[in-house]
C-alpha cells in the first residue's frame, strides 16, 4: 500500500491539500460497469460538487468514498481511494470507523423513526462520545445549532423526527451526520426533495460547514453547484469528463460534453 501511496504522491505532490485522492476507480454492478477508471481529488475544507446527467455514476462514486457500496450485492470496486493517505479499501481497515470519519446525507431525508433527540444522539452513543447525559445533551444542542435547526425544534426534542417537514428532516439528517464529528460529509442530492426556501437554508449551511468539514455534494442543479462549491467534477456515462475550479468549469469548460451539459443541450 505504501507503494501505491507513493505513486499517488508522485502524481500529486499536494497531498496536504487533498483530503481524498481517488485513482483509477472502476465500479461494477455484476457485469455492468458503472464507473470507468475515475481519478479525482477532493480538496480539504472545500466543497466539491459532482454533476452530470442521471445514471452517470455520481452516486456510485460518492458511495465509494465511505464504502457504502459494500452493502450492495454484486457491487465490486477496484482502484485506489485514500483518505489522508490511508487506503480505505485496505482489508485491515475497519469500515465502521471509516464511516464515522466520512459521514453521509442521503437524497431522501431518512431520519430514524425515533425522537429528534435520539436521532442525533444515536451516532455519538455508538461511538462512545458523550457517555454522560449532559455530554450527549450538549452534542445534540451543538449539532442541531450547527445544522440551523435548534431554534425550531428545541421545545420538541422528544417528538419523532419523522414528524418534521421535509426540509427540517434533511437538516436533522445533516445534524445527525455532523454529530459524530466526521472529517468528510458526503451529500447525495440533499435538496432534490426540498422547496426553494429549504434549499437555500441548506446551501447556507453547507457554506458554513465548509470551515470544519470537507464536503462532497452530488447535485442536479448547476446553479446549486455554482453557488456552493469551489470545485466541480462532471461525470458522463461512467466517465469523469472534467474536473476543475467551479468558476472556470462553468464559464470555460474544456470538454465539449461539459459544454453541452451546462448549456442544457443534453442531460
Amino acid at each position, binding site marked *: 500500500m505504501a507503494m501505491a501511496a507513493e505513486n499517488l504522491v508522485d502524481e500529486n505532490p499536494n497531498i496536504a491539500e487533498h483530503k481524498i485522492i481517488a485513482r483509477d476507480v472502476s465500479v461494477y454492478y455484476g457485469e455492468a460497469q458503472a464507473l470507468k477508471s475515475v481519478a479525482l481529488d477532493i480538496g480539504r475544507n472545500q466543497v466539491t460538487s459532482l454533476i452530470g446527467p442521471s445514471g452517470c455514476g455520481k452516486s456510485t462514486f460518492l458511495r465509494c468514498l465511505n464504502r457504502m457500496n459494500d*452493502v450492495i450485492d454484486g457491487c465490486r470496486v477496484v482502484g485506489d481511494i485514500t483518505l489522508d493517505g490511508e487506503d480505505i479499501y485496505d482489508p485491515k481497515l475497519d469500515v465502521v470507523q471509516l464511516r464515522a470519519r466520512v459521514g453521509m446525507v442521503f437524497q431522501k431525508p431518512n431520519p430514524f423513526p425515533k425522537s429528534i433527540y435520539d436521532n442525533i444522539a444515536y451516532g455519538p452513543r455508538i461511538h462512545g462520545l458523550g457517555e454522560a447525559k449532559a455530554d450527549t445533551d450538549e452534542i445534540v444542542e451543538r449539532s442541531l445549532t450547527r445544522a440551523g435547526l435548534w431554534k425550531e425544534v428545541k421545545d420538541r426534542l422528544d417528538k419523532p423526527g419523522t414528524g418534521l417537514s421535509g426540509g427540517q428532516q434533511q437538516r436533522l439528517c445533516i445534524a445527525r451526520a455532523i454529530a459524530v464529528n466526521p472529517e468528510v460529509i458526503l451529500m447525495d442530492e440533499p435538496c432534490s426533495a426540498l422547496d426553494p426556501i429549504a434549499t437555500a437554508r441548506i446551501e447556507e449551511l453547507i457554506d458554513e460547514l465548509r470551515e470544519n468539514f470537507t464536503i462532497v455534494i452530488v447535485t442536479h442543479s448547476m446553479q446549486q453547484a455554482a453557488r456552493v462549491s469551489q470545485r466541480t467534477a462532471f461525470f458522463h456515462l461512467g466517465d469523469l469528463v472534467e474536473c476543475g475550479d467551479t468558476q472556470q468549469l462553468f464559464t470555460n469548460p474544456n470538454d465539449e460534453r461539459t459544454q453541452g451539459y451546462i448549456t442544457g443541450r443534453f442531460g
Partner: protein
Amino acid sequence: MTETSASAAPIQRPDLSGARLKRRYAAEARFRLYGLIAVFAAIGTLVLLLTSIISNGYTAFAQHHIALEVTFDEAEIDPTGEREYNVLRRANYQGIARASLRGSFPDVTERRAKRALVGLMSGSADQTLRDIVLANPDVIGTTQTVWVKASDDLDSFMKGHISRDVPESDRRIKDRDIGWIDQLIADERIESQFNTTFFTAGDSREPEQAGIWGATVGSFLMLFVTLVLSFPIGVLSAIYLEEFAPKNRWTDLIEVNINNLAAVPSIVFGLLGLAVFLNFFGLPRSAPLVGGMVLALMTLPTIIIAARAALKAVPPSIREAALGVGASKLQAVTHHVLPLAMPGILTGTILGAAQALGETAPLLMIGMVAFIVDIPGGFTDSATALPVQIYLWADSPERAFVEKTSAAIMVLLAFLVVMNAVAVLLRKRFERRW
C-alpha cells in the same frame, strides 16, 4: 411543419360513446355483485358453523344437581371421634350419599330398583360429601342439604336431549326413572347450576365429571415449549437470511426448502417426533415437552417466513441511515431494523402459535391421545391438548359428551379469537410511518 413532427396516421381519439361506458359500468356492477356474494357466502358459513356449535354446546356450561338431605352420622364417618384426617378421608361417603337418596324414596325396596335410583346421582356424590366434611369437620353429627351432581343421563333428560315421547326401550331413562325425577322436580330438589367442573377438572369417563382444564393446561404447556423454541430460532434464522447471508444458490435453496417445509402436512412432523424424540432420544410419551418440540418444528417455517417479510418491509433507507453514521451491520439490525420489524414478527408468531394451538394430527402420533384424568403439573407429565380432547369426546358414545365436545370447541375458538385479536392489536399499536 405538422407533417414533419406528427406521424402520417390519423390521430385516434378515445371512443367516448355511451355503449362502451355502459359496458364498463355493467362490468363493475357485476364484479361488485360477485364480491358481495362471496363475502356473504363466507359469512354465512361462519354463522352456520358458530350457531351449530353454540346451539349444541351452550348447555354444557350448566349441570343439574340433586338436593340430598344428608345426615353426617358420627358413628359412620368418625367412630373414634378424633377427627383424624385419614379416618375422615376414608369414610364410606358413597354409602351415606346412597342412603340419603334412598331415604327420600322409602317405598323403593327392590334391589334392582334401588340401584337404578342411586344411578340418578353422579358417581362423584361421595367426593362432594367428603370435600364438605374435610373442609369443615363440624358438620359431623348434623343433617345438611347438599347439592350433588346428577348423573349424565338425568342431566341430558332435564336438558331435553332425551325425550319422554320415544319408546321406553329406546331411551336410557326409563319410565320408572321419570317417575322419580318428576317427584324430585315436584319437591324442587333438582336444579340447574353453573358447571364449574367443566372448567376445573381433567378428563373423565363420566361426562358430568369431565372438564377441559387438564387439556387447557396441556395445550399451554405445549405452546410455551413451542414458542420458547421456535421464536428465537425462527427470528435469528430470518435475520441471518435476510440481513447477513449472501444471496447465492445455497441461500436460494434454503429459502425454497423453508417454504416447502411450511406446506408439509402436520402429521409428518408427528411421525418425525415419534421417530426422533420418542424412539431415538427416548423422551416420555404424551408429554407436553415432546408435543411442544413437534409443534415448534411445524411453526418454525411460518415464523421464519413472517419474520423475513417483516424485515424486508423495513425500508432500506433506515439501514443506510444507520450505516451512514457508522453503525455496524449488527447494530443497524438490532437498533433499528428489528424494532421496526417486531410488530410484524410478533403478528406472524402469534398466528403460528394459534395454528399450533389448534393442531391435532401430530399429537396423535406422539401419544397425546391417551385418556388422562390428572391435570399435568410439568412438561414431562402425561397430558393431552384441547383439540385432542375435542377429538376424544367426539368419539365417546355418551349423549352428554356431544355438548361437551361443542363446549370444548367454543373454548378453543375463544383462545384462537383472543390470540388473533392480540395480533391485530399489536399491528395497530405499533404501526409506524417512516
